[in-house]
């Protein structure tokens, strides 16, 4: 099992969610977060003065999938959240040691 942690643009959440759902990835956890990348946020130019907005609102999606489904799920998230501009986000894939279903106590390794 792997956990996919995707930091995306908030306005792309609906598209990512529905694209994942179409391919059978229904379960997910979504968090509102703030972050910045290499560009240190956005610089706004106003008649001579500059204003920095260094932490921009983002959405973090966490999805846990089977090892052989990682590429597919990552591809879906990347395609659905891409605008081609700075600020599209990042996707991290992390190994998962164990999954416990709380209701039944069922353990999956």
């Amino acid at each position, binding site marked *: 099992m792997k956990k996919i942690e995707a930091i995306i643009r908030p306005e792309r959440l609906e598209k990512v969610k529905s694209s994942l759902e179409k391919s059978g990835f229904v379960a997910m956890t979504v968090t509102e977060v703030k972050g910045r990348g290499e560009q240190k946020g956005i610089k*706004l130019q106003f008649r001579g003065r500059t204003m920095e907005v260094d932490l921009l609102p983002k959405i973090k999606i966490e999805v846990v999938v089977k090892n052989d489904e990682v590429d597919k799920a990552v591809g879906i998230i990347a395609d659905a959240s891409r605008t081609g501009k700075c600020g599209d986000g990042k996707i991290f894939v992390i190994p998962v040691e164990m999954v416990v279903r709380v209701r039944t106590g069922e353990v999956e390794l």
Partner: protein
Amino acid sequence: MIDSGDTAWILAATALVMLMTPGVGLFYGGMVRKKHAVSVIALSFIAFALVSIQWVILGYSLSFGSDISGFIGGLDFLGLKGVGMEATDLTIPDILFMIFQLVFAAITLAILTSAVVERVKLSSFFILGLLWTTIVYDPLAHWVWGGGWSAELGALDFAGGTVVHISSGFSALAIALVIGKRIGFGEENMEPHNIPMTLLGAALLWFGWFGFNAGSALAADGLAANAFVVTNTAAAAGTLSWLFASWINGKPSSLGMVSGAVAGLVAITPAAGFVDPLSSIVIGAVAGVICYKAMLFRVKKGLDESLDAWAIHGIGGVWGAIATGIFASGAIGGYSGLIYGNIDQFIAQVIGAGAAVVYAFTVTLILAKLVDAVIGLRVSEEEEYVGLDISQHGEKAYA
């Protein structure tokens, strides 16, 4: 001769109407995304302050100065010259009449911010707002209330259905066409960020509207009391009819509920001094349904007149003007409408409303294109993306 009862009531009514403008700000503010909340509420305060100054210096004179060809007032009251503490025509001081009219002019500019939210450049709004209130609002107020051609024709507008609502609604439509859609409109989720804020704004509007309509009797008398009652009744009917109309298509949303209240209030505005309470039920209920349909039409056309000033104030205002021609009762305000067999009143109402629609839409379209061409109406794509709160005000609604 000054009447102290009348003066006391109009002083209070003016303050009631003043509160409606920040009310519009909260009503709109809750409906936008949180990164634009400060900006939208601030636009209403700015509209209020801007028109307050313009009206004292120039606007009052253009609207209520001596008539020039039925189109606009002369400059005799420039800087409120000769507008003093005495009563000349009415039973209230001239300067009180002036400020009562000021709060109407101010809220009208605030209503049309519906068309520009989440994307307008603040400096351009100042310029467009000043041009708009001077070139669109002031002449319209003169036509209807300042002794212009519409009043001569006999078109009735008790409290501003034409001057305030048709003008702001159809001007909002024109501005929306020029400024264009918000980035991501129709693709991204743009749901309201704070519905209780919108409900609070609607409450202030409903409350203030008693000053708006009952104050427009310009006296503390039976006509004011009738206007008060029909205002509340129409608002209630509009609330319920929009709620039920939207229930058929899904859940009865609270946003629809208060939109219906405003639709009912808009529609009763021109009629408040001319119709009885039973007619106001019909006026309000029909307003709730047609404004709801107008909103659906707007959404279907993919038009980003963002907060529906056109659907609610524009279409509601047109219906109110026509409804006045249908339901006016001689026993209330001395004029009879269609249901009492008088077609002339109905025709005058249609002409008055139609002329206001054409004037407001056309002139606003030209003004908006002009401002857009010279200084640009919109902020940059990046400023829009981070939100107008940060980019225009350097603030956040929620830290």
